[in-house]
């Protein structure tokens, strides 16, 4: 990962009338990294992305991409940027190849080898009419058009929406390939596992405001895991009084807690009791917001 800033968002605000879209958002995306942009639905992810691309007019602040102003130099920025919208349509009556050829020409790029390579990778039939495709296959068309012009920056809004798990893995592989080529990728998602899988860093947005920007490793550490243990004879709460264990709740014979560190110690201690069942869960994004932030995390 280089240290050149590719996307530099400073104090960005977007209002829809009196409604806040995003507020005073500051974010940097560096050259060659995969940055995840996490947030629940309606948190401002799409607004941020569309404002960066000049599809929405900012209310305040600045966005510089490749050192160029996103408003003044939007065409030059888009020459170097591929984009997959979160929600899109294309020409229903036309064949996929015809559409992709047209979109490639609008990027000022000729040659179809990248279209063929990407469609083979994603198992996309270029001869079919777009209107006849399933949701998943339409998403593949969106992915191909975002990557086909071999641009330096790829912005993806919920890229795996509609893709089956197998295809999601292929897509993650594609992201890694592009990263190896030195591409910068900025992708929004509401699926934490997805961000964990491919991203170097993640920014979390909620209610239009940036909550945290962390590398994935730190985020996972801070976030912890949810440990649920069913004891045969119940348990006292004070046995969990140790560093790295928070939010302990005892309900009958079941204990629920969040373990951010010292998992080994916890297991050793509880194993002295008779355990019927035990589960360790990674947080979903919703749980992250309900737990991490309610615990006064890095806000």
């Amino acid at each position: 990962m280089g240290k050149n800033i590719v996307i530099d968002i400073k104090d960005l605000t977007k209002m829809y009338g009196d409604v806040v879209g995003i507020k005073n958002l500051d974010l940097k995306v560096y050259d060659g990294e995969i940055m995840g942009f996490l947030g629940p639905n309606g948190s401002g992810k799409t607004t941020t992305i569309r404002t960066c691309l000049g599809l929405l007019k900012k209310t305040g602040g600045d966005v510089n991409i490749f050192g160029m102003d996103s408003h003044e130099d939007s065409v030059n920025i888009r020459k170097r940027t591929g984009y997959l919208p979160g929600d899109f349509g294309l020409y229903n009556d036309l064949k996929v190849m015809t559409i992709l050829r047209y979109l490639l020409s609008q990027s000022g790029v000729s040659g179809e080898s990248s279209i063929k390579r990407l469609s083979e990778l994603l198992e996309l039939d270029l001869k079919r009419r777009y209107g006849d495709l399933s949701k998943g296959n339409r998403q593949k068309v969106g992915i191909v058009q975002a990557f086909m012009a071999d641009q330096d920056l790829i912005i993806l809004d919920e890229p795996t929406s509609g893709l089956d798990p197998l295809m999601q893995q292929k897509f993650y592989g594609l992201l890694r390939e592009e990263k190896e080529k030195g591409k910068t990728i900025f992708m929004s998602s509401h699926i934490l596992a997805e961000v964990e899988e491919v991203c170097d860093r993640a920014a979390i947005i909620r209610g239009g405001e940036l909550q945290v920007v962390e590398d994935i490793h730190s985020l996972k550490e801070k976030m912890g895991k949810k440990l649920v243990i069913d004891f045969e004879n119940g348990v006292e709460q004070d046995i969990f009084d140790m560093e790295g264990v928070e939010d302990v709740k005892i309900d009958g014979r079941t204990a629920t807690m969040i373990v951010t560190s010292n998992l080994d110690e916890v297991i050793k201690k509880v194993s002295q009791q008779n355990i019927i069942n035990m589960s360790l869960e990674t947080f979903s994004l919703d749980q992250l917001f309900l737990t991490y932030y309610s615990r006064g995390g890095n806000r």
Partner: protein
Amino acid sequence: MNVGNTLLMELKNSWRGYFIFTLVVIIIIGGFIQIYPSVSSAFDDELDGSENIELDMAEEADFVVAHLSWIDVPNANNYTLLVGKSPQMIVPVDRVEGIHENEYSYIIPLEDDEQEWYFGILAVIDDEETRTEFVGMESNVERISVLEETFGIDYSTIHGFLSVLWRMWWFLLIGLYIVYISVISVSKDYEEGRMDIILSKSISRKQYLLEKFSVVALFTLFLLSIAGLITIASVHSLGELSNISASTLFITTLFSYPLFLVLIAVSFLAAVYFEDSKKSVGFTFLIVLIQYGINMVGNMSENLEYVKPYSIIAYWNHESMLYGEAINWLDVAVLLILASALMFIALRIFEDKDIPT
């Protein structure tokens, strides 16, 4: 600009609509012209056989002399002159029989000289039996139909017929379709959710809108050229190209182009403002109908002529062009400036607005 690719894409995406409408125009324009002969006779207000009679009215001191001469009818023994004050002449006011020459001077008292007079000539022929043959009628007043009186055009000529055809149909037929395809070419990109992807490519919003404008403008030019050629072919098939030249027909058709450029610009303005095809189509249809209505009202009477400049149709002088008069370049310039101004506003609106999801 990447007009070629955009044109190709629009044609691939909407070729059925373009093709069907081009056919409709060909059929309607070509077909309508074919009814000219029957319309011509319906509007022909010449008196029967007036071409056989010459009338010369000469005013004297106390009376007016109507000097009549007519063609010589073979085997005519003599002629009868019928004089009436209406073309029906069921009961003539006077009747002069036994005229042996094919000319006659009829005296009209001076107090009656401002009235309408109608003169009919009958030839009395003695073959195996005596019979009369109608030679013709003539009048001291010029016959003008109600329509000609209203619109100042003689509809019995090919010029008049085409003039009314264009006035009644051209603007509505072509105009409504042009505004529809103009609106749809932009609105559908909003509604079908492809605007984000298109505008994420390396084209500016200005370029996008100008490319779309160029595509519809090129199609309109193609359509008008086809319509011009069909008009020429249809007029030729009626043997009327001797009365009106092919170049006049083509130029008159083609010079409606600035009119439609204004409509295209209005449509793009509506499309980027409303971002909704139903609202935009409704608005632009209303504009077309209002413009058409203003023009019709302005043509109804001289007292209402002052409203005509408020309709863009008034700036396409198809009537004078059909009669071979010079093209009014000032009117062309007015339409081109108006189209440019509307497109400029459309571009400003489009560039300043958020693209909806």
